């Protein structure tokens, strides 16, 4: 995902608004599109979009911070989502989480220094019969053990070179 180039912000805000719309009910779709393009919500872009649609910045920011989908810092190439649903919890997801956290040396929401991995947890991915489950970008890995997840992470690391 690209980091936003600040000089393009006014044009970017215009393009978002013309694509999604400017009525108040479009606030969430606008934020979702921002995140789709950049992997996170760039602060300066929220300011520009608020101005563009004539909504107080506090209101748009208030919406953005209310919903857990939105992130305000750039994410790594691979976004790791550890499922913390009930079935996964009972199946030992805490152990998996701490293995990943130790292995990558990052905590919740943090990104590795090489910008390769971001670690987050989600409430439930809905693949309960495959518990414990971890999603990396769009791929879901089920029935995981600590050994399996280490192998998977290594696989992603090696793709890098």
């Amino acid at each position, binding site marked *: 995902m690209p980091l936003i180039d600040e000089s393009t912000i006014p044009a970017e805000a215009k393009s978002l608004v013309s694509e999604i719309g400017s*009525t*108040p*009910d*479009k*606030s*969430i*779709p606008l*934020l*979702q599109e921002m995140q789709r393009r950049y992997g996170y919500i760039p602060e300066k872009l929220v300011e520009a979009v608020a101005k563009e649609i004539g909504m107080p910045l506090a209101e748009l920011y*208030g*919406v953005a911070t*209310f*919903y*857990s*989908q*939105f992130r305000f810092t750039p994410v790594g190439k691979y976004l790791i989502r550890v499922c*913390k*649903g*009930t*079935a996964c*919890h*009972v*199946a*030992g997801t805490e*152990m998996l989480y*701490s*293995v990943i956290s*130790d292995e990558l040396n990052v905590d919740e929401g943090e990104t590795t220094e090489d910008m390769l991995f971001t670690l987050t947890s*989600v*409430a*439930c*991915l*809905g*693949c*309960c*019969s*495959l*518990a414990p*489950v971890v999603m990396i970008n*769009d791929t*879901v*890995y*089920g029935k995981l*053990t*600590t*050994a399996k997840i280490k192998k998977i992470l290594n696989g992603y690391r090696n793709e890098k070179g």
Partner: protein
Amino acid sequence: MKKAKLIVGLGSCGIAAGAQDIYDYISSKVEGTSVEMGITSCVGLCHAEPIVDVLTAEERITYGNVDRKFADKLLEALQEGELPRENRILDSEEEKKYLEPQVKIVLKNCGVIDPESIDEYIQTGGYEALKKCLTTMKPEEIIEEIKKSGLRGRGGAGFPTAVKWSFLAASPSKIKYLVCNADEGDPGAFMDRAIMEGDPHAVIEGMVIGSYATGADHGYIYCRAEYPLALKRIKKAISEAEERNFLGENILQSGLSFHLDVKEGAGAFVCGEETALIASIEGKRGMPRLRPPFPAQSGIGGYPTNINNVETWVNVPRIILNGASSFNKYSYGKSFGTKIFALAGKIKRGGLIEVPMGLSIRNIVEEIGGGTTTGLPVKAVQIGGPAGGCIPDSLFDTPIDYDSINATGAIMGSGGLVVMDEKTCMVDVAKYFLSFTQKESCGKCTFCRIGTKRMLEILEKITEGKGEEEDMGKLENLAHHVNKTSLCGLGQLAPNPVLTTLKYFRKEYEAHIFEKRCPAGVCKALITMVVIDDKCTGCMLCKKACPVNAISGERKQVHSIDPDICTRCGICVETCKYDAIEVL
């Protein structure tokens, strides 16, 4: 090669289990032959994914746990004749127990038809109910039929659907909205996802019938963004339905117009609550408000709005097409029809099941589910998600019925049913659910915002071995206040997991507090990992796996774990092939 169609189950969990790879693999092998490929969605047998159906002129055979090697075997068999006997699921006496108690009304198409093809939906009777409504029924007759069926809201609260509809129908407003609540937020629940992935047109048909019955001309499907496949399929279904004029202007030349849009939720559990969901559709922070006015009086943009859950909407075309009696012949007390559950946790045959009202929890756990994966006795089921509660095995004869389940202190909820065995700590489960609701509290009501936080702190204290005698009383007192002073269901029901575990598993709380012991061996501060000398072979696997180097011992010598270094992460227990590490 024999003429056949191979149908691969491509639901989210099937794909996660490798079904997409199997589909691509078989497709590449059968190109140019008489074997045709097809897709369907989740048939509910999640424990047997990936699943491939072989459809020949004579029969349809379902194979489970299909890998590339077995796929090769299937293709060979199609060339030479006899289809393999192994990996057939639902063939053995034991597996038949999975299907026999089930009644598929809502799920009848899931795992059977191709969800991305409107033609397959139509071939199985799809949109016939809508035609019947538009050509032979008046709006009030539809509401009457739904009333007769006894359908109650499947989102959890169980409010009679026909009553809700009649409020909206009675409103003189020119603009009215319908909403399908697909913001399935309960951890451990995936019924709505499976329906939308498996039978999206049924949701649309239900809503169009609803629009005719209530006079609403616009609808929203509010689906969480975490379900990309469900979103893709429902959007495709909407555009196909519009092309065929089952949606849009002047539907089937009847004069009825109904437009449907998809709204993606952004990850807020509280948006499952009606007024919060409406705020979210309006683009605001998803916070609930005081009712009245009810959504039927003032909903989206101030206009009358009716919200039903996915499962409720899909029941509508089934009831209309086959009559109320086909539905309410399944009944227990004041509950009619069927209920879908996502059976998960430590269960042998987990998956998506649909059972008639009145079936007991024991039937579900023991017959349909086949008991636990571990072979250990079942201790409890957690039903109804974070707003629900834990029901102990002594109450497993409780029937599936809104009122009977409420009487235990749990709720029917939307359909999460997580099975727990003796290795599940009930205090930890209560802490887990409370940490979820505490995080998801929108913060509007003081007791929900702060009271759940204080409750969570007490539970953390207990699981860390610092619990005191008065903590249980404090929890009950706080639970009472959180319940009484919260505006919406999230706060009102948040104490349920704590209250039910305190009620049925008080001994476990007492063991944590007085004996500083976790009977299930889960709470880290209260357990120690010990090597069983007789079983340890000195293979050194655990020593290598231990992330903190707490294990010492030479090759072929009995190892030992230093409790001062050990972090109780459990990796050694998972790694040991000889069950030589015990949790005390």
